[in-house]
């Protein structure tokens, strides 16, 4: 199977309708604390707990969630930077879940990443040209042939031009560039091998708004020109709406809702998605005053001991007693089309507001929740 992945011309005919990447029931757990052969760690962080998703050819899938929800871990599992605990991942029809390093090599060229931190992701002691040229030095040209230093330099300069950097700055160090330019360097490096899937992990979160907009436009243009598929990870829903075809919302290791981008904003089903949307700052004073913001109580629970049932139930304004015990499946709810799925037992109807809703668990629990609700007001 792995030889099929190398063959560039053959695979493109190979079922274009099939998704580029399919993850089914991916679980990733990390043991907590030092483990040695004598002292086995019992506790595990449930970073990703049974995520299934598919990324279609040429689309942008936005993956949204708060810090610690497992979105970056999931991305690294999909890129096979982490081994998964269970579940399977297939790229372009090939199962890569347990592929060896050697077998993964051709896949590595196809899946590349752009990281969040434009400072931490570039080696400060190396010149920009050699940073961008690294993937070419390791993997060789598109056909796998190794490249001469001169060829590489040419290609690197083309790449720099492609991402809007001055190719003459080839010999400079990362410290000579601003945050936005560094992010372009990271992007050029990721594009060097002409990947088909680009995983962007918070690529614009560290940038100023005006620079952020430049970077987003560049990503949109490159997608068209190079027929790229994006997995775009961010915590900023206003950014993700601009660039995504579909959005998946993640909470504590689970995907709680997935829908076409506009549909998610217009027909929000999961209370968590709704809360996330309402927390978005809008740069419009009148709108900001008019809307009622759902301030979620408390913090993200510990992924070491995730809550029972629906993982959002301790913070959900609409929680009912069955949410404590039943873990909902990610399925279309309330006659939604098949591409809109939500993992919620009591999904929101169109026009239904979350503000003012009170959780109704069984008697014992409801007291605790009521107490928490009054808490953040800061009385």
């Amino acid at each position, binding site marked *: 199977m792995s030889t099929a992945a190398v063959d560039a011309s053959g695979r493109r005919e190979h079922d274009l309708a099939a998704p580029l990447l399919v993850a089914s029931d991916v679980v990733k757990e990390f043991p907590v604390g030092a483990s040695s052969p004598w002292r086995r760690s019992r506790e595990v962080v449930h970073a990703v707990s049974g995520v299934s998703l598919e990324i279609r050819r040429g689309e942008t899938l936005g993956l949204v969630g708060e810090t610690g929800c497992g979105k970056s871990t999931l991305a690294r599992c999909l890129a096979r930077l982490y081994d998964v605990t269970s579940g399977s991942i297939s790229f372009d029809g090939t199962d890569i879940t347990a592929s060896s390093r050697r077998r993964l090599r051709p896949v590595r060229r196809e899946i590349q990443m752009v990281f969040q931190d434009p400072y931490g992701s570039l080696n400060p002691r190396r010149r920009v040209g050699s940073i961008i040229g690294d993937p070419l030095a390791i993997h060789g040209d598109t056909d796998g042939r190794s490249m001469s230093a001169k060829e590489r330099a040419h290609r690197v300069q083309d790449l720099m031009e492609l991402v809007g950097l001055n190719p003459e700055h080839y010999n400079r160090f990362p410290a000579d560039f601003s945050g936005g330019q560094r992010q372009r360097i990271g992007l050029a490096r990721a594009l060097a091998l002409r990947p088909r899937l680009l995983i962007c992990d918070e690529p614009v979160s560290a940038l100023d708004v005006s620079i952020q907009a430049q970077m*987003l436009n560049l990503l949109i243009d490159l997608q068209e020109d190079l027929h790229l598929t994006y997995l775009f990870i961010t915590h900023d829903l206003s950014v993700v709406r601009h660039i995504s075809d579909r959005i998946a919302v993640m909470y504590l290791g689970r995907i709680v809702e997935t829908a076409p981008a506009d549909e998610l904003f217009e027909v929000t089903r999961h209370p968590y998605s709704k809360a996330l949307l309402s927390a978005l700052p809008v740069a419009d004073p009148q709108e900001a005053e008019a809307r009622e913001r759902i301030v979620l109580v408390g913090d993200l629970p510990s992924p070491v001991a995730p809550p029972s049932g629906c993982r959002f139930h301790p913070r959900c304004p609409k929680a009912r007693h069955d949410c404590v015990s039943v873990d909902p499946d990610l399925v279309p709810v309330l006659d939604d089309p098949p591409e809109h799925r939500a993992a919620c037992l009591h999904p929101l109807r169109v026009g239904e507001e979350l503000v003012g809703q009170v959780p109704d668990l069984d008697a014992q629990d409801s007291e605790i929740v009521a107490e928490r609700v009054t808490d953040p007001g800061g009385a």
Partner: protein
Amino acid sequence: MTLLEVTDLHVGFPTPDGVVHAVRGVSFAVEAGRTLAVVGESGSGKSVATQTVTGLTRGAQISGSAVFDGEDLLTATTKQLEAVRGARIGMIFQDPLTSLHPYYTVGWQIVEMIRAHDRGISRRAARRRAVELLALVGIPQADLRVDDYPHQFSGGMRQRAMIAMSIALDPALLIADEPTTALDVTVQAQIITVLQDVQRELGTAIILITHDLGVVAEVADEIVVMYAGQVMERAARHELFYRFHHPYTEGLLASLPSRAPGRGRLTPIPGSPPSLITPPEGCPFRPRCAYAFDRCTQTPWLAPVFGRSDHESACWLPSDIASRDERVASREARVTSPHEQPA
């Protein structure tokens, strides 16, 4: 009542490559009990300006004045500054993890802060106050959590603890430097609510330094827009969002994803901010400005626009221009503006 008045502040940092002119003639004023937002991109000098006011920029070349409650903080002695800093002016910084000491409990740090300024208070009373403060900023079970170490707190809780510490001595002014930037949107919403509650209950004036116009749209009374160490525009919140004058303000607002509905390309400001070692002649925004004309090689000053004294803009475009079309038209006509005579 004007609580803090900063006038013609200049701050320069000597470096091997030359002096970095981080702040170049900035003036602003904060009224008691109000919120002033200072908005700008990285390197615009917004943090340096406020840190200088509280004496936190050592080794810098400083000129101008910053009068707080009748006292010029820029000429104050270290001792005088120490009495003001923390007690009369509270501060919250961007990164709540690095602003708390990892080695001491959160409660210990608040108690130490209270006792440093008030020797008379007993340890026990200071601790009681710490618990009250933590409860005030919405930390659940404050009486237990007071003995936790910073690492046992989440990012949002750490920022709440920072707020608790900064308001411990009931300051008249709170300087919040990017207080929500490192936090998730949901937590951000909580922190903004806490700040608003604090202001309502204690009557604290707030200087909110941020690059996030979304946050500003919710909490600011007045907004100062900074670019390349200078103030570009100053206006009340509604005025700034709905009738901005300066092209830089227009560019900032236009580049926000939330202001452009739907999918597709955004409208960024082309180029990047200038080097502050050799700032450009004239208007610093000129190289990136779509409306620049020959006049812009001279440095504009803040002057009233739309005939309002509370709305000022440092731009040569005519003072009554509010729309994009008008800006384009005026550029084509190469008009000179009523800025001609200094106010």
